[in-house]
């Protein structure tokens, strides 16, 4: 048994557009997914995440490169011979069949004996809490229930890998949150590898063991949610996952706290953590997340401290979002947690207030400019 | 030996299956092939043959002599035939206009009643549409003939002293044509009117349009594709129709459809019949193209 249940080796997928042009949907992507992992492909629409998933499922074949399932190269194996199953974005339930018939379909295709089919379908429906709905037709179910049927239909075949293509996209926010937890629990319970395609970064962070962030057909970074959020390896990842303030800068030199960068707009130098291979003199993007900007009356010891002024504040309950203008007219966002309960407006900052923005070196990331 | 041959055959079959699986172009071609072939043999080739035939010469005994000849087309300019052509266009146009005037308000009405009622009303339009058209003509013959129901009704009421001669007149042909083609006009009109969203009309009202303005500026322009489809579906078959003139117009009414039929079956001048048929075909194709280009046309109005 291979260490990786799914491997993509330098996979490229090009499509011909109806106008006769060629678009590269997936551009030299390599991935290695372990047994039992909850793995997410995250990126904006059109980034190639769904195409990658469809190549694993067998609906598309790579233009070049190889998809391996359990160490076996798939080549042009059609979907019905692959040991993976898919939960579709539109659910793709068979409208002319009952819930039972939908879930039983895959087992019938495997020529499973009728008694076993009955037993396993019952189990699968119990697992997704749909017992008693066997004889309903899909259109008699709510969106959430249809989603569960799609899940049961794919899981009942006990695939090596379950592929999920934005399965929660059509549900409302509350139901989506519930389903996220349920899916994660289910995955741990059955121990099957899940590959989850989503454009919702919060969803990916909540559920995944590891995430690959994709953009324009390229896999930019693969790592745990903490790695992706705290140590993004490029400007796109930092920007797409959560929010970030950026300064354009130039690498000066490495030192014991990290590296020094010149920020022309701020007319100052900042110390931060270099990510990836950076050379002195190189153009870089310096990023700091809003919740990591500390607003104070005084400059803090050991911090990059920049003088600034409050422009605008937005109170959102748990936090106050503060828009600051720093030296040279650069504006950044800072989020202050509201740790004390008070009605005093001064506690939430006032426009015009002169302050210091403390950017601690461990919170400042120096990324290669895209 | 046999086994290995079978092996190769199987492999070949598997290969061709794989090729079919991989090439969507091949799949599309495989699916369209029966239709393309069938229509080629039983529609395109016959039409080309008619085209060729129209350039041939009629022999002395009604046979076809294969000698190139453009007389069949020049004969069509003869005032006798030109009159038939103009008359056919006139009957087609009159039929279209009358069905439009009757059909538009009705389609508009059906599109505005509540959904349940709408289904019933549509159903009632569909029944005659799906009923045999000779039966529908027959119903009118029964009513219109000299000793028919209309005359006996009017005589009994004392409204007339002598039976009216309606059957076997151009009026009768028009009555029959309108009755035949009314559903063909109503259905596309209804489809296009039904598609108009209420919100658009509400927006018009909101912006100050009174009912008439809202009809003229919103409803009517949006129903133009339906008018086109309905007119094409009425005008063209009406112009080529020979059954209604045969049954209701007596020998007096000859449309271009009758002309074509007569050349083939009674006058036995196939080349001239073929030429008239070509004329009819080009006329209809040209008209269809002109209108569809001009107004736009969506196929779902046809069926």
């Amino acid at each position, binding site marked *: 048994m291979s260490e990786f249940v799914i491997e993509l080796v330098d996979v490229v997928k090009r499509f011909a557009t109806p106008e006769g042009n060629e678009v590269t949907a997936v551009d030299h992507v390599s991935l290695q997914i372990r047994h039992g992992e909850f793995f997410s492909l995250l990126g904006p629409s059109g980034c190639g995440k769904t195409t990658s998933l469809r190549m694993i499922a067998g609906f598309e074949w790579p233009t070049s490169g190889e998809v391996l399932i359990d160490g076996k190269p798939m080549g042009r194996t059609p979907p019905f011979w692959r040991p993976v199953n898919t939960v579709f974005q539109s659910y793709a339930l068979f409208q002319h069949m009952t819930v039972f018939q939908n879930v039983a379909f895959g087992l019938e295709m495997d020529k499973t004996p009728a008694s076993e089919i009955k037993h396993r379908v019952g189990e699968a429906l119990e697992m997704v809490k749909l017992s008693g709905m066997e004889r309903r037709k899909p259109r008699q179910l709510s969106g959430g229930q249809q989603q569960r049927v799609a899940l049961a239909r794919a899981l009942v075949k006990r695939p090596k890998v379950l592929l999920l293509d934005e399965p929660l996209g059509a549900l409302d926010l509350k139901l989506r949150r519930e389903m996220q937890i349920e899916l994660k629990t289910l995955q741990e319970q059955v121990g099957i590898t899940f590959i989850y395609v989503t454009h919702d970064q919060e969803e990916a962070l909540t559920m995944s063991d590891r995430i690959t962030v994709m953009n324009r057909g390229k896999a930019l970074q693969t790592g745990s949610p903490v790695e992706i959020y705290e140590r993004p390896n490029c400007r796109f990842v930092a920007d797409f996952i959560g929010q970030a303030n950026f300064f354009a800068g130039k690498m000066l030199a490495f030192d014991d706290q990290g590296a020094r960068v010149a920020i022309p707009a701020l007319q100052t130098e900042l110390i931060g953590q270099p990510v990836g291979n950076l050379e002195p003199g190189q153009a870089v993007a310096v990023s700091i997340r809003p919740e990591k900007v500390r607003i104070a009356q005084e400059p803090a010891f050991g911090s990059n401290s920049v003088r600034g002024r409050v422009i605008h504040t937005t109170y959102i309950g748990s936090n106050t979002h503060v828009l600051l203008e720093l030296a040279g007219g650069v504006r950044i966002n800072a989020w202050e947690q509201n740790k004390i309960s008070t009605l005093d407006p001064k506690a939430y900052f006032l426009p015009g207030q002169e302050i210091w923005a403390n950017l601690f070196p461990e919170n400042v990331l120096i990324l290669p400019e895209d | 030996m046999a086994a290995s041959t079978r092996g190769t055959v199987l492999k070949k079959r598997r290969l061709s299956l794989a090729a079919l699986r991989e090439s969507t172009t091949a799949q599309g071609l495989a699916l369209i092939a029966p239709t*393309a072939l069938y229509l080629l043999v039983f529609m395109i080739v016959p039409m080309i043959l008619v085209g060729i035939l129209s350039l041939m010469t009629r022999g002395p005994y009604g046979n076809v002599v294969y000698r190139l000849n453009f007389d069949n087309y020049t004969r069509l300019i003869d005032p006798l035939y030109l009159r038939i052509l103009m008359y056919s266009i006139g009957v087609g146009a009159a039929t279209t206009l009358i069905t439009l005037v009757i059909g538009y308000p009705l389609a*508009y009405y059906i599109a505005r009643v509540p959904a349940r009622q709408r289904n019933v009303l549509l159903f009632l339009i569909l029944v005659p549409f799906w009923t045999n058209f000779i039966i529908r003509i027959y119903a009118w013959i029964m009513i219109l003939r000299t000793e028919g129901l209309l005359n006996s009704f009017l005589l009994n009421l004392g409204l007339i002293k002598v039976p009216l001669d309606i059957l076997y007149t151009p009026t009768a042909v028009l009555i029959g044509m309108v009755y035949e083609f009314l559903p063909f006009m109503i259905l596309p009109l209804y489809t296009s009117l039904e598609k108009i969203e209420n919100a658009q009309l509400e927006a018009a009202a909101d912006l100050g349009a009174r009912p008439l303005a809202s009809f003229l500026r919103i409803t009517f322009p949006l129903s133009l594709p339906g008018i086109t489809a309905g007119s094409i579906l009425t005008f063209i078959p009406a112009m080529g129709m020979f059954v209604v003139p045969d049954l209701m117009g007596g020998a007096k009414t000859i449309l271009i459809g009758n002309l074509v039929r007569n050349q083939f079956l009674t006058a036995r001048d196939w080349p001239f019949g073929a030429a008239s048929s070509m004329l009819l075909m080009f006329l209809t194709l040209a008209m269809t193209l002109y209108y569809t280009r001009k107004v736009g046309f969506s196929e779902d109005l046809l069926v």
Partner: protein
Amino acid sequence: MSEKKPSAWLRLFSALVYLYIYLPIVLLVIFSFNKQKLNVSWEGFTLSWYQELFRNQQILLAIRNSLTIALVSTIVATIIGTLAALALQRYRFPGYTLTESTLYIPVIIPEVVMGISLLVFFSLIGVRLGLGTITLSHIAFSIPFVALVVRARLHGFDKSIEEAAMDLGANELTTFWRVTLPTILPGVLSGALLALTLSLDDYVITYFTAGPGSTTLPLRIFSMVRFAVTPEVNALSTIWVATVFLVLLIGQMVQNRQR
């Protein structure tokens, strides 16, 4: 469209149009039960015209011919036309636009043009006119109608259900039989119903492609009504209208249940 109440004038007008559409049909039906042969005035109720109808060997033969032709041409045209609809809706291939526009020809050109083309074709290749040539012709004009109807129903087809079937282990053929066909079946059935009606209804093309002994029902009715009015035709018409009414009603009910 708006559900605002249509005006009284519009209601009245519409009622009159329905009267215009149905009065002839209702009279047709009533007089099929009339004792008087000349069908001029009502004389009394009788079912004898129906009895006579079923004793008329010529009519029975015509019915048999019509049904045979309609059945064969409907089956063949439905299969071929459905494949074409799938091809046009889902695939792009060389000659796409050409085939697509060719499909509209029989819908648009007058029937008489197609009728004489087929007559010329069959006589030039020397085929004897009869049930066979009629059936071949009916298939030709039915294919485009089936293809257009089925294609219209394919517009909202969600291709991912086929992918789902394959994903669950069904090969292309199984996917077609178990998932694609059942899903598009309502469209295919309405295409078939249209083909059936067109075939049973057709006079013009049949007229040009029929030979001795292959008289169909419309041809027989035509020759019966050409010079005379006879209650037998009323009886036949009544049966026809009633059948159409029932078939359409069942079709509507099936459709409503599916919704």
